[in-house]
């Protein structure tokens, strides 16, 4: 398995992702500058990392979604390759159209940086196979614009299609509004494409990948991806 981590000007979680994946899977991880037009040969997973690409100018992720490498990422996704967008990477995926929806500024009017509980809604995706269904995991969030939004009819379709993979919840898995940190509709923290090979989420699994950081729930994601790719 080769992972390609795309670096945009302003990405700042790329090294954390590279560290988390290589330490926990022992597989090769390459960095790819956004101006490249092709992905390294043998790429199984593409990661769009967190950060503030292009300073969040215009809209979060809008300018990165038009970077030269994006056509290759889209092609990779079309060919059933795995694509993971974390935080700003999720915002980029929304702007590319690889995932539906948009993000708005947090309802709290503040940048939120804290640990969050998430309920795993689907464990049949390449990214979440190792989790139990409805397992509660803890990943931190760190964002200003994380209120996931879709117009009502489209949101209904997203739910009907089972595209919600992670929802903000309490420690015991309750998804009441009080456990929703940013006002995301239906407590949505992460979604997948219809085909299941593209996942985007606001929380950071790479920041929950070793004990010294306060938890290792993210490790299961890296190992799930590894098992999925190596079995193919």
């Amino acid at each position, binding site marked *: 398995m080769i992972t390609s981590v795309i670096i945009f000007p302003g990405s700042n979680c790329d090294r954390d992702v590279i560290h988390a994946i290589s330490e926990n899977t022992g597989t090769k991880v390459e960095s790819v500058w956004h101006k490249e037009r092709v992905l390294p040969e043998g790429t199984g997973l593409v990661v769009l990392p967190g950060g503030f690409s292009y300073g969040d100018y215009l809209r979060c992720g*809008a300018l990165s979604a*038009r970077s030269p490498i994006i056509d290759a990422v889209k092609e990779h996704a079309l060919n059933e390759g795995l694509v993971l967008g974390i935080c700003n990477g999720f915002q980029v995926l929304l702007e590319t159209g690889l995932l539906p*929806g*948009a993000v*708005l500024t947090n*309802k709290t009017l503040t940048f939120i940086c804290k640990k969050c509980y998430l309920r795993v809604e689907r464990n049949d995706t390449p990214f979440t196979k190792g989790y139990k269904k409805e397992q509660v995991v803890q990943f931190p969030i760190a964002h200003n614009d994380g209120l996931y*939004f879709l*117009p009502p009819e489209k949101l209904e379709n997203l739910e009907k299609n089972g595209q919600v993979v992670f929802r903000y919840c309490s420690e015991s898995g309750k998804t009441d509004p009080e456990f929703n940190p940013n*006002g995301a509709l239906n407590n949505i923290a992460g979604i997948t494409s219809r085909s299941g090979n593209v996942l985007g989420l606001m929380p950071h699994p790479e920041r929950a990948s070793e004990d010294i950081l306060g938890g290792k729930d993210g490790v299961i994601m890296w190992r799930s991806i590894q098992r999925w790719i190596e079995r193919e």
Partner: protein
Amino acid sequence: MIFHVKILVYLKEGVLDTQGKAVAKALVNAGHDELVNTRVGKYIQLWINAGTQEEAYTKAEVMCDEILVNELIEDFDIEVEHSK
């Protein structure tokens, strides 16, 4: 000919405008009790080389569709005038 294009981008009705809410709060705190609502948008200016005003408008519209506006959450208005 160069045309000056002024684009207003704003959140669609019904889309939560957190920034607008924050600004409204600040205005009310400053004593502006008459305030009913606030919505905040973006003002983008472009200078476009085109043969006619209509052509400049169309080019700006394409730019809005492609990058400047996210039609899921935003609406926009375009005004075109001859550049001074």
